[in-house]
């Protein structure tokens, strides 16, 4: 089907073209207080076409895959291409950049999708029951959710690429609510994997979720001050993702990133090494090739403090005079964006306990909220939830505070990196200590 679509596009004036077909089957179920509250099934397909004419380029997507609709897709894409302009850098990847073989990254667990619905409901029920049963102060729950998806991706381009792969994802989470003296706090915990068997036990996930909600009870506000800030693995991973957005090709050639012109420069302390590895077997972000058929690889973004690579698709790579890194991601309208795959901060030698013990008075951050990041300047200001550290120990929970700084300065202030790296998502990091940030409160 894709080959026919490409042929039709070329017959009608496209110089180059590529097309994607994605078929997905998804199940989401929610259990609350032991009862199944919602169940959602879906089967979906969509097809994206991108074309390059002599003068322009455009893309379009449709979920109607009838022959007539696919002909309309070609028409509409050509009409759009008539008003958009291409330049000398646009176009498909060079043949030598394309994936030659499709590595088997162990992304599909066909058997994992087979068990009956009741078993999946039972997993969510067990996770929620473990959270609710953890203690009398865990009084209610926003529910537990089980989710699985099976996707089949096919990609073909007029550059001579045709390939595809299948992938599974399984995940569940639970969100308990804890109450004490009229104060109400919720938190959650989750597990995700490419195989059903790779998920953590429901009881463990439920118990961790309950502990996380309980440790927030009795939260206080802080005085405004400058102190060391320790990011737990979840918030440290968020920090790494934020940094990585600034390292994506489009934001660099537009001058919209604080990392412009910093390739090869020291941007962080030597404790910081960040890797994006698209080829990790079983990885939740793994894929054998990117959104343009470029071969996947392991990329060192920051090498002992030195910015060693950007994340690039074909166009942004050519604009910047570099080679594509295999990070093209297709957007809903069929256009190309850039994103990470399996992103992580390489662990250091310190245990999390050791890192907390190194802080006399400071903040341990467990959740960040809001969008207070300016990628052009690196200015960073976000709402935070966590625990106050006193004399090297976690003393009491804190909330309604912000942490602020500048990402470049924060990277230079990374003092300690933990040894507690665990992959439970497409990005991961160990505990991380930053020497000094502004904490705003009273």
């Amino acid at each position, binding site marked *: 089907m894709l080959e026919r679509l490409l042929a039709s596009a070329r017959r009608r004036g496209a110089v180059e073209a590529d097309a994607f077909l994605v078929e997905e089957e998804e199940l989401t179920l929610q259990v609350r207080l032991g009862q199944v509250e919602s169940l959602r*099934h879906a089967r*979906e397909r969509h097809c994206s076409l991108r074309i390059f004419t002599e003068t*322009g380029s455009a893309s379009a997507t449709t979920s109607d895959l009838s022959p007539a609709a696919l002909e309309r897709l070609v028409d509409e894409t050509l009409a759009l291409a008539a008003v958009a302009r291409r*330049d000398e850098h646009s176009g498909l990847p060079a043949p030598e950049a394309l994936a030659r073989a499709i590595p088997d990254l162990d992304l599909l667990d066909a058997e994992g999708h087979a068990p009956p619905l009741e078993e999946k409901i039972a997993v969510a029920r067990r996770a929620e029951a473990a959270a609710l049963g953890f203690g009398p102060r865990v009084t209610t729950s926003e529910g537990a959710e089980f989710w699985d998806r099976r996707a089949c991706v096919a990609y073909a381009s007029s550059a001579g690429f045709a390939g595809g792969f299948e992938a599974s994802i399984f995940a569940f989470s639970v969100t308990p609510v804890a109450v004490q003296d009229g104060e109400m706090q919720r938190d959650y915990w989750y597990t995700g994997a490419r195989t059903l068997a790779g998920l953590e036990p429901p009881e463990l996930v439920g118990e961790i979720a309950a502990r996380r909600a309980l440790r927030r009870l009795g939260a206080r506000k802080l005085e405004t001050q400058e102190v060391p800030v320790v990011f737990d693995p979840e918030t440290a991973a968020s920090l790494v993702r934020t940094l990585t957005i600034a390292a994506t090709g489009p934001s660099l050639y537009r001058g919209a990133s604080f990392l412009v012109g910093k390739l090869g420069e020291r941007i962080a302390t030597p404790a910081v090494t960040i890797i994006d590895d698209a080829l990790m077997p079983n990885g939740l972000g793994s894929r054998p090739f990117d959104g343009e058929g470029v071969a996947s690889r392991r990329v060192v973004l920051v090498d002992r403090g030195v910015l060693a690579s950007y994340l690039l698709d074909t166009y942004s790579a050519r604009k910047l005079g570099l080679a594509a890194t295999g990070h093209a991601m297709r957007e809903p309208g069929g256009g190309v964006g850039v994103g990470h795959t399996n992103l992580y901060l390489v662990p250091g030698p310190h245990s999390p306990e050791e890192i907390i013990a190194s802080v006399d008075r400071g903040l341990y951050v467990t959740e960040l909220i809001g969008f207070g990041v300016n990628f052009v300047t690196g200015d960073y*200001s976000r709402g935070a939830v966590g625990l106050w550290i006193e004399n090297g120990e976690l003393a009491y929970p804190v909330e309604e505070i*912000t*942490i*602020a700084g500048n990402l470049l300065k924060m990277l230079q202030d990374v003092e300690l990196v933990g040894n507690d790296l665990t992959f439970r998502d497409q990005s991961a990091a160990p505990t991380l200590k930053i020497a000094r940030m502004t904490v*705003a409160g009273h």
Partner: protein
Amino acid sequence: MTTALAHPDRFFSDRYGLTPSRLEGLLGTAVGGRVDYADLFLEYQIAEELVLEEGVVKKASRDISQGAGVRTQADVRTGYAYTGDLAIENLELAARQARVIADQAGRAGVMAVRAESRPHDLYPVAEPPVDAPLQGKVDLLHRVDALARGQDPRVRQVIASLLSEEQVILIATSEGWQIGDIRPLTRLQIRVIVEENGRRELGGFGGGGRVPFDFFLEQERWAHYTREATRQALLNLRAIEAPAGTLTVVLGPGWPGVLLHEAIGHGLEGDFNRKGVSAFTGRLGQKVASELVTVVDDGTIPNRRGSLNVDDEGTPTGRTVLIEQGILRGYMQDRLNARLMGMAPTGNGRRESFAHPPMPRMTNTFMLPGGDDPEEIVRSVPYGLYAVTFGGGQVDITSGKFVFSASEAYLIEGGRITAPVKGATLIGSGPEVLTRVSRVGHDLRLDEGVGTCGKDGQSVPVGVGLPTIRIDGITVGGTQV
């Protein structure tokens, strides 16, 4: 193409053979005698995006999606199945899948489906924005670029995007009625990057609504957006570090209404209150704000981004008073949560697309004007922050803590607006922050029409609004201690 579509029901019956009797049959499959309620949501959507950068339109894309969601309800349980293929066999499969949830006795049968007419006609447009000629859109983006670059030599990059959408929907229910809507939506957004002595800064502005493309040309709105984006970027070049700590804050009119959306809006959505997990649970009739504060959610304002003729469950939208002179008066409801709480649906059942079940969501949320002069409000503050433009926000529904991030703000010193400060996140507690509102201006303004709200992975267009207000104490997340 879609201008002839005065009737969404005819659209789905002509194009896909989904006649009222077919829909009735599908609802019958979904109900199967064992659920309380079932509905079908048919959708056809076109989204076209043009993006200009480096002086040329580089990106042009069009996404056409169509599909149907079948929902069944039995007590608190919801079954939802959707398909991206409107062929009748797939709809039947979805209806059978949705029924799986109904493993306990219910009571509904299917009534003969008859068409109802729309209660409002809030966004009649002669030419839907998706049908406006491409060349005119491209020309507009080029004018934006030329104007921004001509304004100041420090302008380095102009990124302008124009989004044009049209959503045709049809809802049919087991209660025997169906209703449709055609919803145009468009948005022009401009980002300008300036550079001076190696320092780069960003400014952004935009607008839109359920309006035709010509909206941007009328009153030269496009030029206003462009000048604002450039002015903000240049202003940021001389912004100083923002203060850190609890300060008196004056919020300007319009977009700062995102405060209401985060601080109280989400906490007043029916689902969180039905589950008892909102910081506002059980507080109807209690004082949650100063008596100067009245807040409404109104989905019926003509042509606004957050407005709807009917919500995504077919309930007519309305105006819901959330807080009246400081007293909590109402929640925003979809059908399920309204029924479970013994309340009336308020026309707030919304969904991103056919792929998502509806839930209570905001439409246009704003505070009614007070009697104070905005300039006098600023003069009343010895030291504080004056914030006029914000980026996004977020809230923890259960603890009530919320944030929203200022992108244009100034210090107030001795009652005068002085230095611009860098963007900073403001954090507060939803049930408390409005009790500290000590002045409310007479200058209510709604935002320009660019807001999108995310909840549980679903995005929907929304509006906010605010008059100038003074808050006696909120934590400002700057760096200057």
